[in-house]
């Protein structure tokens, strides 16, 4: 370590100025005669450490250098030189060689300034040139030393001001600093030695073995040359052993991986056998499922033995685990069931852990179909029993429930059936709720489940709640059916049967809406009962006719029979209900053409015919009775038609149903036509024109006569003896005059009095009178043509003109 000799900077105390210190001392006196070499040797620059370079804020080295140079130059300026010692004297302020004070030196040096200026400038420039090259490194080192000293000022306990003092105190301080530094140095050396000591000891301890190895190495090298071949053999053995070792290591690694991948560890085995069914258990199950999947890949190998063994082992474990899951699920179910019985209904929120475990168990169990089906059977059995108990409890008259038992409404079939079906409805929605909460896997997070389960059973599991609901109601179906059927079977009223039909249709729709399958037993049973009730509607209607004993209790009235009125009233009531029910648009329409044929067409064609035959047995022989028959028939059919008229645009609006209505209408028209013919014939008889009418109609129908030309067709009748004037007079004149004035009233009062419909009566009357009028006109005109010279005679026989006749019969 370098130490600065601060003694060289010592100045006289009286002349010492802090600002000038520590200025480097010029050791050599520069003389004009001296060579530039000597000047270089003795000249020194201002001290960098004490300079104000740092204080003045010099930023870069270049700035510092420039400032230093200007400082140095300024110190060499004449102005400064006035205060500087002359070159001849001791220039250096710090020199202590002469021991003279600085002021004295300056005074002595003033004379030499002029001489030395030029020389100094020259030297200074040279020194400055060389300064960078030679002294920069020393200065930097020196600066670092000062810096270190400055940093450790606190530790070394020195006062820099005291240290630079030139007097004894300064000297003492510097000595003390030196000794402090030395002792510090020693301390640090000792510390280093202490640190190194254990290492040295270790090296010493190892030095002997190392030396031995070294010696052995040397010996081996010496032997090596001798036993080269032997070494080669050993080395090859070593390499082969190394290879074997590497292979064995790899084999071990593979076997460990296989073991981890294809077998369960002890903890997992224990979990599978002994732990409670829960998350850990399902983790092991998941691994077993993976093992099974892996085993299937192994089966594809040329030697499938490993795959077969693994598959067998895995299957056996899965089988055992499935049995445990099965037992857990059954326990869960029984516990739930017994808790429900004891404490009332139970429920789970969707995030309940036991519920999630239960569902996970179901998920894993779904892989073992026989056990899974067995569990499903148990669920169905348990739930069916609960549903059945709930269902039957409503029929218990001693039930403690607040609602009145269904059995109380048994007197009202529709209400009773409504109560039963409404209760079944509430049982279905309750059960659907329960099944959704327990067996709906759609909302459950099954991301962790093995893909194989989801791929194979996902669809089935998602529909499980619906299938369970349907299966649960399978065993209950019989009890429900019995309770419905016992009412439906004994109900004959077609209106009530229709209401039952409607009720069953509606509940069938609602039950399907809430989860029952259209092909489920309960729905099928409801459909069967619905068909029964629909068929009983027609049966009920026809029974009214059967019970009426229409061929007995015959009254001689021509008005519609009472049984017909009652029947039609029932039928109309049914039709009105049917219209309102909205079943008209149904594809399987209850009131189809068959129904209408049975209920109406057969009534007209069969029942009424039988009735009239029984009522008017002599109708074929007796015209009067035939007229009565026709009158009664018209009245009955007209009544039927009138009662059916409101349903013309609904029930009879289209297709085959429209044909039924038209059939009734055509029957009525036929009857009216027949009656008109019979009545007209009677009128002609009463007028004495019957023979002539027959004769004329045989030649050409009188009704078809259009104009006067047609009369000529009847001219050949002259050949007939009855066409003699006298014969005509004898046959017609008197009767005509007697009956014609009363003809109209006779029709109204006697013949058509029993016709209920005034419209039909009017139609018959007007058509009969028209026929009479027409024939009279044709007959008179033909006679006038036959006897052109005897018009007066003809006029006396048929003494009423056409107009007069029309007026008398009321056609005008």
């Amino acid at each position, binding site marked *: 370590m370098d130490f600065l000799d601060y003694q060289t900077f010592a100045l006289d105390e009286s002349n010492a100025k802090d600002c000038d210190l520590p200025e480097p001392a010029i050791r050599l006196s520069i003389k004009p005669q001296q060579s530039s070499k000597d000047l270089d040797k003795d000249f020194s620059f201002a001290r960098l450490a004490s300079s104000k370079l740092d204080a003045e804020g010099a930023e870069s080295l270049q700035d510092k250098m420039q400032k230093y140079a200007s400082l140095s130059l300024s110190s060499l300026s004449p102005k400064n030189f006035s205060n500087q010692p002359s070159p001849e004297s001791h220039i250096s302020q710090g020199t202590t060689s002469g021991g003279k004070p600085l002021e004295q030196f300056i005074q002595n040096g003033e004379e030499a300034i002029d001489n030395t200026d030029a020389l100094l400038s020259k030297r200074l420039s040279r020194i400055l040139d060389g300064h960078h090259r030679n002294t920069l490194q020393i200065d930097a080192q020196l600066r670092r030393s000062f810096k270190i000293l400055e940093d450790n000022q606190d530790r070394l306990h020195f006062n820099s001001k005291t240290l630079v003092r030139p007097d004894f105190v300064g000297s003492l301080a510097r000595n003390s600093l030196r000794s402090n530094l030395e002792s510090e140095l020693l301390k640090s050396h000792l510390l280093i030695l202490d640190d190194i000591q254990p290492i040295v000891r270790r090296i010493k301890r190892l030095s002997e073995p190392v030396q031995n190895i070294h010696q052995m190495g040397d010996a081996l090298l010496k032997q090596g040359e001798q036993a080269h071949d032997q070494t080669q053999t050993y080395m090859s053995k070593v390499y082969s052993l190394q290879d074997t070792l590497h292979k064995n290591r790899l084999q071990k690694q593979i076997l460990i991986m296989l073991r981890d991948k294809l077998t369960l560890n002890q903890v997992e085995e224990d979990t599978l056998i002994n732990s409670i069914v829960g998350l850990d258990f399902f983790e092991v199950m998941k691994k077993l499922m993976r093992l099974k999947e892996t085993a299937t890949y192994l089966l594809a190998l040329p030697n499938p033995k490993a795959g077969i063994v693994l598959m067998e082992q895995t299957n056996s474990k899965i089988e055992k685990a499935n049995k445990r899951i099965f037992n857990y699920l059954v326990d869960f179910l029984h*516990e739930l069931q017994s808790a429900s019985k004891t404490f009332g*209904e139970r429920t789970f929120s969707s995030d309940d852990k*036991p519920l999630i475990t239960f569902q996970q168990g179901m998920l894993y169990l779904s892989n073992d179909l026989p056990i899974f089906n067995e569990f499903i059977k148990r669920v169905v059995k348990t739930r069916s029993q609960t549903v059945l108990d709930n269902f039957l409890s409503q029929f218990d008259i001693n039930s403690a429930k*607040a609602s009145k038992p269904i059995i109380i409404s048994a007197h009202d079939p529709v209400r009773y059936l409504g109560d039963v079906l409404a209760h079944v409805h509430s049982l279905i929605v309750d059960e659907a709720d329960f099944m959704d909460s327990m067996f709906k896997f759609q909302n459950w997070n099954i991301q962790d489940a093995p893909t194989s389960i989801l791929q194979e059973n996902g669809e089935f599991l998602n529909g499980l709640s619906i299938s369970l609901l349907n299966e649960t109601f399978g065993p209950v179906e019989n009890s429900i059916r019995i309770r419905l059927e016992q009412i439906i079977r004994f109900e004959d009223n077609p209106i009530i049967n229709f209401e039952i039909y409607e*009720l069953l249709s509606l509940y069938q729709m609602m039950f399907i809406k809430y989860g029952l399958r259209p092909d489920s037993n309960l729905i099928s049973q409801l459909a069967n009962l619905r068909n029964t009730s629909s068929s009983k509607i027609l049966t009920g209607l026809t029974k009214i006719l059967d019970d009426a004993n229409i061929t007995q209790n015959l009254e001689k009235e021509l008005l519609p029979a009472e049984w017909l009125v009652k029947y039609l009233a029932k039928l109309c009531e049914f039709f009105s209900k049917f219209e309102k029910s909205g079943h008209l648009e149904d594809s399987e329409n209850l009131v189809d053409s068959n129904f209408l044929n049975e209920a109406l067409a057969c009534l007209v064609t069969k029942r009424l015919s039988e009735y009239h035959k029984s009522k008017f047995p002599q109708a074929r022989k007796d015209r009067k009775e035939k007229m009565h028959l026709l009158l009664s028939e018209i009245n009955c059919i007209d009544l039927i038609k009138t009662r059916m008229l409101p349903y013309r645009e609904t029930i009879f609006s289209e297709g085959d149903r429209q044909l039924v209505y038209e059939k009734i209408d055509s029957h009525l028209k036929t009857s009216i036509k027949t009656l008109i013919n019979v009545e007209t014939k009677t009128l002609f008889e009463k007028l004495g024109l019957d023979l002539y009418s027959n004769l004329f109609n045989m030649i050409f129908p009188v009704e078809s006569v259009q104009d006067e030309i047609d009369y000529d067709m009847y001219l050949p009748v002259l050949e007939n003896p009855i066409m003699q004037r006298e014969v005509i007079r004898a046959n017609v004149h008197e009767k005509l005059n007697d009956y014609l004035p009363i003809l109209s009233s006779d029709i109204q009062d006697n013949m058509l009095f029993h016709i209920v419909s005034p419209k039909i009566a009017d139609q018959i009357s007007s058509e009969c009178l028209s026929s009479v009028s027409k024939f009279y006109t044709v007959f008179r005109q033909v006679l006038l043509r036959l006897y052109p010279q005897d018009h007066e005679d003809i006029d006396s026989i048929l003494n009423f003109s056409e107009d007069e006749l029309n007026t008398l019969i009321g056609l005008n």
Partner: protein
Amino acid sequence: MSANRAGKSLTKYKIVFLGEQGVGKTSLITRFMYDTFDDHYQATIGIDFLSKTMYLDDKTIRLQLWDTAGQERFRSLIPSYIRDSHVAIVVYDVTNKKSFEYIDKWVEDVKSERGEENVVLCIVGNKNDLSDERQVSTEEGERKAQILNAKIFIETSTKVGFNVKNLFRKIAKTLPEFQKSDSVALDDNATKNKPDVIDITTNEEQEQSSCQC
């Protein structure tokens, strides 16, 4: 473990909605269940069913909402549902006087099936937001409810969601399960955090402020 595996106890309450066609029975249920309103009217066919679970402390109740059809042809079904119901909500339309007059008939049906005491009778005047078309005043409704001995009378608007939750809150308060545990418990925050929980704790005043009239 055993207790958990058996789930929580559950009490079911049957609520039947009655009233003439188009008064808003289905809308009332839809607003309560899903907080929505459908402008397009669609008549109910037969009887519809919806259920909601409510949790209170350790008790769980399930409200079974039976929505009946107002159409005449389905009338015969309704008594079978009133027969075992705990609450009967008779709804009328404040803009339709006739629907208000028919309340008597509905209440008569309820009383004949359930008697006076076994059922909580509520009378609800719906479509309260249609103030311009109003035909039945609130006072008339209140008077009728008093005469018919209804436990709850309230006017609602399913369209703007006015008083609907309030109605069900009032109904809940009358149920034996809630009466025992005091209605304050309905405000329990714990219930709000559970799944499938109906929050029936709507501030009455706050809901009142949404009234359009």
